[in-house]
């Protein structure tokens, strides 16, 4: 009566949950501390904004290429993904076409990135834009599309049906209902999807390797080849015997991710407050 008496089952389950959480956070800290400890010391201004031609191992071209690739991929994939999710959740009537689309997205989600790489390599060569940021952007867009669709779908579905009913019941058009009631409620979820995908684009190497290429130069246009940080990182680990630069590059990658996540979280928090 006075003291909490926990059933043994509850204790075990509780323990499992705590251990899992500690594991997750522990691994994250381990990776962060390990990489940052080895890499932070090797980062200098020159390292960041120099070109390899002027300063050995500098990574400015990789940073620029990465940013270009992220921008172009997000620009292509996010609107398509959100529109597709809206179609699936709000418009589509259950039937063959929806099943087909759903099957397609699920299949796309499962396709390994290396297959995207191979596909991008042979497909975009047809249009004569092989090894360019553009072909990488297209390839990655297809790759992240199912993720965006799925997460947006989840977010849309989480919006209570009562809201839709109420709005439609007022004689408000479907489109407006979606734009003014459904989407705002789903926005944090959608934003998370986009964040996760920026991370995925920044971190993707296999698909980028075969489509964007690996030229360590600042790309002059979206039709040029370039080398993203992740590809650079892979090349450092496998081709060049330079662990210091690898640690430093990994550190830069992680810092970029931290910054992206931080910004996105700020936006998310702002939206939450509204």
């Amino acid at each position, binding site marked *: 009566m006075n003291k909490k008496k926990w059933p043994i089952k509850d204790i075990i389950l509780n323990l499992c949950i705590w251990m899992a959480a500690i594991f997750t956070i522990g691994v994250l800290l381990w990776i962060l501390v390990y990489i940052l400890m080895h890499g932070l010391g090797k980062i200098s201004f020159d390292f960041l904004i120099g070109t390899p031609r002027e300063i050995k191992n500098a990574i400015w071209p990789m940073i620029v290429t990465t940013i270009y690739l992220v921008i172009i991929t997000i620009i292509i994939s996010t609107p398509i993904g959100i529109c597709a999710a809206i179609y699936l959740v709000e418009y589509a009537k259950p039937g063959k076409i929806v099943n087909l689309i759903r099957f397609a997205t699920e299949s796309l989600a499962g396709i390994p990135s290396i297959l995207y790489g191979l596909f991008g390599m042979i497909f975009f060569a047809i249009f004569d834009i092989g090894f360019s940021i553009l072909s990488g952007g297209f390839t990655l867009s297809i790759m992240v599309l199912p993720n965006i669709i799925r997460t947006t779908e989840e977010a849309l579905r989480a919006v209570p049906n009562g809201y839709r009913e109420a709005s439609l019941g007022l004689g408000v058009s479907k489109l407006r209902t979606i734009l003014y009631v459904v989407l705002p409620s789903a926005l944090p979820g959608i934003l998370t999807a986009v964040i996760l995908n920026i991370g995925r684009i920044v971190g993707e190497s296999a698909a980028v390797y075969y489509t964007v290429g*690996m030229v360590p130069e600042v790309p002059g246009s979206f039709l040029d080849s370039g080398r993203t940080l992740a590809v650079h990182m892979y090349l450092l*680990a*496998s081709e060049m015997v330079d662990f210091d630069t690898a640690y430093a590059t990994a550190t830069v990658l992680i810092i970029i991710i931290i910054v992206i996540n931080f910004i996105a979280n700020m936006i998310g928090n702002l939206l939450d407050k509204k």
Partner: protein
Amino acid sequence: STKEVTKKSNGEESESTTKEIMGKDLEGTITLIGSTSVTPIAQVIGDSFMKEYPNVKIEVQGVGSSAGIKATNDGLADIGMSSRDLKEEEKELGIKENIIAYDGIAVVVHPNNKINNLTQEQIGKIFKGEITNWNEVGGKDEKIDVISREEGSGTRSAFEELMGLESEKGSLVRQDATFADGNGAIVSNVAQKENAIGYISLSYLNDTVKALTIDGVEPTIENIKSGDYAVSRPFLMLTKGKVSDIAQAYLDYVLSEKGQKIVEENGVISID
């Protein structure tokens, strides 16, 4: 005319005039595609080349020898790069080969490993899996951890050829070896594992690993040149059909004295 004015105002006029006089006003981009082993050299020479021809951009894609050969054949690459000799079927495509350098292959172990020398035969047996313990070659009683490159690697074909690891039934390298993707990966593997043995391109050698002498001969550029250290292979640059002015200029540059000096500086052996 506007351009000239800008040039003048930039004060670059004199420079460009000199270049015109020298006939070096080449302009454009060329793409080199091919072997990852050749890529670093091509890149370094490219950088130096671009300093002399500021209006030229050289893109080097290290996607593999075979991809390079194919890209040359398809006309996607102005110049292809390969770290192995062309196979019969590839030779039939009408691709022109230029040997631009030679590379040595070093057998490496962990620096803590007591062993400094192995015979060619011992190395062969280790990679075949006939010798599996370091004590069989005079070391500690530990299992040998064999690290190799993947099938198709230029480094590996050269290594197999010289160590007697080839047969009609294909490569004899033990299947349960660790297969590392690139020279760097071999170095990091060997650097981390006391019982490991691997082989790398000479230019990748650093002090995290120890290079063995083979039959008592050290893997140095001199020994390779003299033929004492026989584990080496050619680096190729490939062209097909009509070669563009820039590509030709670049090839000439690579083979020039200046280019070959850069080759040497990067631990690769120049052609003599």
